[in-house]
């Protein structure tokens, strides 16, 4: 299991836009540099990218919920 951590505080989103599907679903392959979510802070959206490759397990932080820096956003199996 590998955790993907939030690089900064803000609001975490699973999807690129409200009507779109989540970036990743359980069982999806994740490569280094793949975007798995967005963090909104200071009117800016920052892509959260995987730093290790693996298989997506689940989002650990709620969609559109507040997150702190260093908080686990998602896990890779």
């Amino acid at each position, binding site marked *: 299991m590998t955790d993907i951590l939030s690089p900064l505080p803000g609001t975490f989103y699973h999807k690129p836009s409200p009507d779109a599907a989540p970036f990743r679903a359980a069982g999806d392959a994740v490569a280094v540099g793949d975007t798995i979510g967005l963090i909104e802070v200071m009117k800016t959206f920052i892509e959260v990218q995987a730093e290790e490759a693996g298989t997506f397990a689940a989002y650990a932080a709620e969609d559109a919920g*507040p997150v702190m820096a260093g908080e686990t956003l998602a896990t890779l199996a």
Partner: protein
Amino acid sequence: MAFEVIKPGLSTTIQDLGRPGYFHLGIPEGGAMDRAAFRIANMLVGNDEGAAGLETTFMAPELKFDADTLVAVAGADMPVKVDGAPREVWTSFLVKAGQTLSFGFLKSGARAYIAFAGGIDTPAALGSRSTYPIGALGGFEGRAVKAGDVVPVGKPSGALVERALDKALLASLPKPVELRVLTGLYWHRLTEACQERFFADEWTVAPEADRMGYRFRGGHPMEFVPREQPFGAGSDPSNIVDGCYSYGSIQVPGGQEPIVLHRDAVSGGGYFTLGAVISADMDLIGQLQPNTKVRFVNVTMDEALKVRAERKDRLARIRASLG
């Protein structure tokens, strides 16, 4: 000497103590959001307190140095590393030519200040090196730093001596955070019930909060004393005939979410301002992360001046300890 920006962080800008004197022309004073932390970072490397340094927000940069230098980090708490080896916040440390300064995830606070012996030596604009991005003024080409930028640093005025701040000299943070407020010119526009609620409610820092303004949500909307809107004011009860905004003043567009105007804010406009956060608490705002719980506390001018004097004394003790 110079350093190269390897990774820029989220919004890393060159700042100093700002450019007072142009606010009446609509150019904000700017400068470091947490002025005390900024001054201490400069003290730690033996600079004048107004020498330009970097302000990092939430996510710090990675920098590579082309010559030996002395660097200090102050303000927000996050792991500091030189070529991967840990260093401490609130200290200065030598960095050798070719070494890289990097940071881990933010632990507390919001803005860290990085000072360099000699100070950043980009051209000043209107008497300051502070970056005002919307005006494309000062800083590095008028913007936040980007990967690949090579930022010049001036000559240190003395020997490179590592220093550490005695952290007992720093103010302790109240939890929940309290921001002290002097009510203002338009306070009478709110009903008594609304005035009481404003100070009773718990507010939360909104993720939009930035150098222009810190927005808060979670409290009750404002309730205005009914009136016929004067000529020249907009139709919403939160509108006024245009007036001046001070640093720290609290506007509530549409009566919904209070915004405390900070260092890069506009100098006037057509929203009523219910009061202002006292100057002694403005640095603290610069260290608030989104989602932090905050209460506003009503104080008098006498209390505000007393706290300001205490703050000045604290800084003088820190200055003496590092001198």
